[in-house]
């Protein structure tokens, strides 16, 4: 029963929680966290049940209000969307558990709004994943985007401005998407994806359809943060509060990438797909090079997000099953790596008082367990074998070799080398840099983290860390970091099982014929 209705339950539970949290939070501010955690756990269970049901009995289609598609709105849980929604609900559960202490520390007066808005964001993302209707997708996309702007605007003094830049770009992206849907609607007369797939063969050479698809892809590229239009992403991630970044960075851009998969595989790959491959390659190389130049950990991670979204796009647009599996694996792996890295970065900011790369000396002494998780994630980012990152890169490479596009093979390998350069710099400073006089400089925490709207963080006392006392994150923050870090290794070890049982089913039907 629950499994059959899971396509509707997943987004609706999140959206319900977004309404319930302000109501209960009005009476007791502390209740917001418990409602959020319960909802995330419930959604996680529902998406697990849904995935199991999909794997045994095939695709579930839920018709909202009983209206049959193509007239009504359809929510579809097929292997691909079940995979993504499981990923969303898993990382949401981890982040919400992690958030309790961090939010209380960073945004003490905004606890209730934070949870409410993050539930709204998750509802939007889950809806984007599950919907089978192009216009409904736009609505969910805007729900997620607006909640995202609000979350990213809470942070230090610079956060509102970077969120504003994200807002203007993101809204333009959504407008491009809506315009593209308009052209598709004019040509096909329908908005349901399955229905469009049946009409599209008749009209696929019309200018309106091609222009519409290009506009949709452009709009999604803004949301994904692909290279030429990634400008909003580093600023927004760096200046926002670390909890908001942890929530948005792992899944926000991935869901946009998933929508790109949906749109590109409605009927068959459109002809402009090769251009997109080159954009993806540019994104991989440029993101890696820009990441090297960064001094701030969060900013470096944001640029590596640009590079990794390039991997995913490359995997989709290389248009063969191996690369496609690589892209899906990389969605999973990259989400988990970014979860660990950003969660650890939040802990570093709280405990060491800074995110500057050069001040990381002694980080392993201060936070040994966090360092353990952080380094697992770093190894996965580079692609060292037992971790998941290795396997997604291997599949991408195999896919690129199969299509004999040697430049892309080169791009992936080059970016791996660049990743070693920018990620191991951190290890080098943390473990091996000798003590320097300038390390004794005291760090005033209040100058590093000032909240928007004139609020000042309550902890104004100067923080010193030259004594290198052990100062680990609280248990509630450590547990999710460790779970995900171990998950990275498990995904690597059991990658064959995941691909065999789940991702193989998610490859679109026309794909296999496309290659042979």
């Amino acid at each position, binding site marked *: 029963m629950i499994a059959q209705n899971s396509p509707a339950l997943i987004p609706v539970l999140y959206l319900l929680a977004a309404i319930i949290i302000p109501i209960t939070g009005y009476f007791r501010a502390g209740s917001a966290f418990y409602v959020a955690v319960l909802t995330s756990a419930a959604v996680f269970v529902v998406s697990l049940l849904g995935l199991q049901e999909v794997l045994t009995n095939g695709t579930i289609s839920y018709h909202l209000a009983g209206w049959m598609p193509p007239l009504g709105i359809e929510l579809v849980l097929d292997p691909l969307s079940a995979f993504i929604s499981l990923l969303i609900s898993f990382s949401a559960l981890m982040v919400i558990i992690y958030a309790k202490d961090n939010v209380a520390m960073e945004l003490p007066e905004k606890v209730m709004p934070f949870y409410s808005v993050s539930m709204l964001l998750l509802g939007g993302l889950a809806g984007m994943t599950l919907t089978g209707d192009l*216009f409904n997708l*736009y*609505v969910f996309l*805007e729900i997620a985007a*607006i909640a995202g*702007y*609000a979350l990213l*605007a809470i942070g230090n*003094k*610079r956060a*509102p*401005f*970077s*969120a*504003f830049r994200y*807002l*203007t770009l993101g*809204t*333009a992206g*959504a*407008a491009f998407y*809506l*315009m593209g849907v*308009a052209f598709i*609607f*004019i040509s096909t007369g329908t908005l349901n994806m399955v229905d469009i797939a049946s009409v599209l063969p008749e009209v696929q050479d019309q200018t309106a359809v091609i222009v519409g698809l290009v506009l949709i892809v452009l709009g999604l590229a803004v949301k994904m943060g692909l290279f030429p239009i990634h400008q909003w992403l580093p600023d927004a991630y760096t200046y926002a509060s670390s909890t908001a970044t942890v929530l948005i960075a792992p899944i926000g851009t991935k869901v946009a990438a998933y929508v790109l998969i949906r749109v590109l595989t409605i009927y068959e790959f459109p002809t402009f797909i090769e251009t997109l491959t080159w954009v993806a390659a540019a994104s991989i190389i440029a993101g890696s090079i820009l990441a090297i130049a960064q001094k701030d950990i969060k900013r470096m991670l944001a640029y590596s997000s640009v590079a990794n979204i390039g991997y995913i796009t490359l995997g989709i647009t290389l248009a063969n099953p191996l690369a496609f599996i690589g892209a899906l694996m990389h969605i999973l792996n990259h989400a988990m790596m970014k979860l660990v890295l950003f969660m650890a970065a939040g802990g570093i900011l709280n405990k060491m008082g800074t995110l500057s790369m050069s001040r990381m000396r002694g980080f392993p002494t201060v936070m040994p367990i966090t360092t353990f998780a952080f380094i697992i994630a770093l190894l996965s980012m580079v692609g060292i074998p037992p971790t998941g990152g290795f396997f997604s890169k291997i599949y991408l490479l195999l896919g690129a070799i199969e299509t004999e596009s040697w430049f892309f093979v080169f791009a992936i390998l080059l970016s791996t080398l660049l990743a070693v350069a920018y990620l191991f710099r951190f290890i080098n400073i943390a473990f091996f840099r000798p003590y320097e006089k300038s390390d004794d400089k005291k760090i005033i925490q209040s100058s590093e983290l000032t909240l*928007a*709207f*004139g609020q000042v963080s309550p902890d104004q006392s100067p923080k010193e860390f030259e004594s290198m006392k052990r100062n680990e994150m609280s248990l509630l923050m450590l547990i999710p970091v460790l779970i995900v870090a171990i998950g990275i290794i498990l995904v690597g070890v059991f990658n064959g099982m995941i691909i065999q049982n789940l991702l193989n089913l998610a490859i679109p039907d026309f794909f296999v014929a496309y290659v042979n």
Partner: protein
Amino acid sequence: MLELIEGHYAYFFLMLLFMIGIYAMMMKRNLMKKIMGMSMIQSATIMVWIVSAYKDGGTIPVMDPNISLDNPDLYLNPLPHTLMLTAIVVAVVTLGVSFALAVSVYRNYNTLDENELLDRTKEQ
């Protein structure tokens, strides 16, 4: 060529509006003018949908006793209009959020000029 323009002049006009909006968002330095450009983009998109529902000689999609039931061609397509009601709501919400952000930027920096804001965020 002339026929194409005559048949689609509304679309040409709306694309022009869209382009002006993008120009304002990219080139104008004042944040309020950027918001105006953003709003123009959204309005242009909404209008494209509305225009796509238009039919020569069609009437509003409300049952008219003078038109027999077996002649639905004489009514406009109501679907884009209803969809665009949702899109208008979304546009209003984004405008609200963008104004709130602009206000909080102004409170933090006492200016809405983009170049100055970029300078000040860099120097810190």
